[in-house]
């Protein structure tokens, strides 16, 4: 690779010199603003009010984006922004999972505001370079890279015509280009998308970090909501940050000893407990595949079923055989001893433009395995790994690609689309060759791949309009809500999880709440009030990770040995206290666990109002496809007949004897749909919203989120 040649082709468009701010209690107190239409680079002051009300991370992203756009702004308008922010705790090295960045933008698939979280080194290095957030607005004329040098205080915008677009190549080229030597590579992080992000709406962002032991660039993904598509629409090839000198207290925290002690306590807990609990260090999130299959929760054939006899073929033991275990530090930021990000080395690609090459793959996560694997009826780990690689390098969200392909396969099997429409792709469940070709077409911007790349919602609309598909049936089986493809859990038997997906501000993503065990298995949420309380607490608790720059996994994928004996094991009380201590240790404030929830509530309600401002956010947008609620087809009903017949008897007091399957399905559907509506009522009530899902003025006031511009939006709906 001759990076000198690539670099020689760069043309400097703008340059900005600054004195990097020394961090104070987790904040740089400055943010970086870049406008690519005007080649303008500026700094902004992060105010005390911003820190008080929006905390950081996703909160800062939402606030900056709110100020950047109007209700009419579309995702591909120049005023749309990509905002990246790590949050005040982000970048500490002592507590596992503290390297997260939160990305916010107007989404190509939902049309509204979306947020996505991602690991890798970018967020911490950005902050150590003196910036609490990076806002990128405008559009470049030709492909550019943005380069931030945090040691020398330099930001540049450079035309970069010759670098690759696909992330696995681009990440390597830019790491090589900007590092002074091999040792220096760990100080570089690259944000990029890929060729398919250009031609589809489901593009994602890769955030890199350099794996010094394997001497390879690794990629973590901000997958949801199509932000990679926004990146390429702005003609950004990459955003590169360079910062040398990561140490233990660059955040200049208020109480280093408190932060350190809290971190060491968790390191010890992981050392002693991980082998007995989820074995994250060995298996990563792949451990979930077998579990979900056992509990009938693993999406199979477009969420029709929750398990498959071949589920074992794609579960953890199969992956463990193929993982590379060089060293024992597979964290995506310093100090993450939970080490969930696993690696496959020397994987020989069988298809596509890089066929025959041996590559390193950031090994599939649970969501990817379920999405591109079981949900498409494919139980082949080589396919899943290769699909994962190509999704990553092409800049495609594996969750959206999986759910989308599964939907297309069901449409194909029902004759809604055919070979003529797909250009010869036989998209039956299980056809991995066709699925892979679909992905390659997305990269090339050709054929049916280009059409499919618009996402489930637009495909659904197209099939109804152009191919005369039954609108009701498609509405039922198209697993999207708000325009976003569903994440990979079967929610049919857990009403609380139906709400967890359906009521999420950004779309059906499980990072809002994951309540299936509490609700369906443990039966801990018997009443609507119980479910509403859980759908208040857990989304708020999880939102908080995105405000401060932390990963969710160390919260409950490892727990203290005595956690089961606490009052509320599902909350992991000791870890909640850890987070309170971390926040206070970093910022010097003195919040309680209740304040933590209130911090999230303010930002959560702000995001809700943001949706309203963009023309969404009312009750009708919380509707979900019936496939996520109950059996759509006879095939599904009959496959779990005993369960469903039993429910008719127990819950509805009906005698299924003598009823036709259609009658039984109709009765069950009526019941389940009513339950979902009642759930919405209960949750809105608990959250302090009207029956139409609008935050009440007193709620906003209680949370200190009654900013004039926020109240003005809400008043239009009250």
């Amino acid at each position, binding site marked *: 690779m001759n990076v000198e040649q690539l670099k020689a082709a760069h043309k400097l468009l703008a340059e900005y010199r600054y004195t990097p701010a020394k961090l104070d209690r987790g904040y740089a107190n400055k943010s970086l603003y870049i406008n690519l239409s005007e080649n303008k680079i500026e700094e902004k002051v992060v105010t005390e009010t911003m820190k008080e009300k929006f905390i950081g991370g996703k909160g800062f992203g939402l606030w900056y984006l709110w100020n950047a756009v109007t209700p009419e702004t579309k995702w591909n308008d120049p005023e749309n922004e990509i905002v990246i922010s790590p949050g005040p705790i982000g970048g500490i090295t002592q507590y596992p999972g503290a390297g997260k960045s939160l990305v916010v933008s107007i989404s190509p698939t939902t049309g509204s505001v979306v947020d996505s979280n991602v690991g890798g080194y970018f967020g911490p290095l950005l902050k150590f370079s003196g910036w609490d957030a990076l806002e990128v607005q405008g559009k470049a004329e030709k492909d550019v890279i943005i380069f931030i040098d945090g040691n020398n205080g330099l930001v540049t915008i450079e035309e970069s015509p010759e670098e690759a677009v696909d992330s696995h190549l681009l990440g390597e080229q830019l790491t090589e280009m900007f590092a002074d030597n091999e040792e220096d590579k760990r100080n570089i992080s690259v944000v990029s998308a890929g060729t398919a992000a250009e031609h589809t709406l489901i593009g994602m962002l890769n955030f890199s970090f350099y794996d010094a032991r394997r001497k390879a660039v690794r990629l973590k993904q901000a997958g949801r909501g199509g932000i990679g598509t926004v990146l390429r629409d702005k003609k950004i090839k990459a955003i590169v940050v360079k910062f040398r000198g990561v140490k233990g*207290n660059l955040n200049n925290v208020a109480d280093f000893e408190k932060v350190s002690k809290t971190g060491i306590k968790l390191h010890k807990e992981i050392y002693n407990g991980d082998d007995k609990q989820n074995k994250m260090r060995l298996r990563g999130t792949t451990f979930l595949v077998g579990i979900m299959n056992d509990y009938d929760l693993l999406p199979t054939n477009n969420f029709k079923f929750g398990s498959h006899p071949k589920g074992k073929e794609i579960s953890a033991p199969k992956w463990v055989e193929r993982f590379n275990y060089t060293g024992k*530090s597979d964290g995506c930021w310093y100090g993450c001893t939970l080490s969930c990000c696993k690696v496959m080395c020397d994987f020989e690609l069988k298809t596509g433009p890089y066929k025959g090459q041996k590559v390193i793959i950031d090994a599939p996560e649970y969501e990817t395995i379920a999405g591109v694997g079981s949900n498409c009826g494919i139980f082949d780990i080589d396919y899943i790994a290769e699909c994962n690689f190509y999704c990553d390098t092409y800049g495609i969200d594996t969750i959206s690609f999986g759910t989308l392909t599964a939907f297309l396969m069901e449409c194909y099997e029902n004759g809604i689309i055919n070979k003529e429409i797909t250009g010869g792709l036989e998209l039956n469940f299980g056809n991995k060759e066709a699925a892979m070709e679909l992905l390659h077409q997305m990269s090339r911007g050709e054929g049916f791949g280009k059409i499919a790349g618009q996402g489930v919602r637009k495909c659904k609309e197209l099939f109804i309009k152009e191919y005369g598909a039954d609108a009701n049936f498609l509405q039922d089986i198209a697993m999207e809500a708000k325009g976003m493809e569903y994440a990979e859990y079967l929610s049919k038997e857990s009403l609380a999880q139906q709400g967890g997906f359906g009521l999420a501000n950004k779309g059906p993503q499980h990072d809002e709440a994951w309540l299936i065990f509490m609700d369906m298995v443990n039966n801990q949420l018997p009443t609507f009030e119980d479910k509403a309380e859980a759908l208040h607490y857990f989304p708020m608790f999880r939102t908080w990770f995105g405000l401060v720059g932390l990963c969710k996994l160390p919260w409950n994928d490892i727990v203290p040995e005595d956690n089961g004996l606490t009052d509320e094991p599902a909350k992991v009380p000791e870890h909640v206290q850890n987070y309170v201590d971390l926040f206070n240790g970093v910022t010097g404030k003195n919040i309680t666990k209740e304040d933590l929830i209130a911090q999230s509530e303010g930002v959560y309600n702000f995001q809700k109002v943001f949706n309203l401002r963009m023309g969404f956010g009312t009750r009708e947008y919380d509707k979900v496809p019936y496939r996520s609620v109950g059996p759509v087809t006879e095939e599904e009903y009959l496959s779990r007949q005993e369960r469903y017949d039993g429910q008719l008897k127990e819950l509805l007091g009906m005698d299924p004897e003598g009823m036709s399957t259609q009658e039984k399905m109709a009765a069950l559907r009526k019941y389940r749909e009513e339950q979902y509506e009642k759930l919405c009522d209960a949750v809105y009530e608990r959250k302090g919203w009207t029956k139409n899902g609008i935050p009440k003025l007193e709620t906003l006031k209680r949370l200190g989120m009654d900013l004039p511009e926020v109240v003005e939006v809400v008043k239009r709906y009250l």
Partner: protein
Amino acid sequence: MKKLDKKEELCTACHLCEQICSRTYFKEENPKKSAIRIEEQPNIKITVCSQCGECIDLCPAQAIYRDKKGVVRIRKAICAGCFACVGFCPEGAMYHQGELEEPFKCIACGICAKECPTGAIFVEGEAT
């Protein structure tokens, strides 16, 4: 492999080694800044690095290495201060203290062993 070895049955828990260690490396007498620790309850126990090297692979910054004499050492300049090594040390012999941004451990210098009145601690493998 050079390491500080121990005969716990000879230890009288005079704690002199702790004082010497913290004085040598931190210029103060503070048992919490000693790389060797003596517990008296329930039985006398000497905790000190066995130079097993488990922490070497664990360190995300690759700041921990084994030197020519076999002693496991920390390159402070590139240590990212995550203290993973403290939490994962099988002996509990990697330490963190207060505001110190890097962990510390026994490097088998033997200064404490020279002063130990009973010979309960001594340096092994000096020649290699």
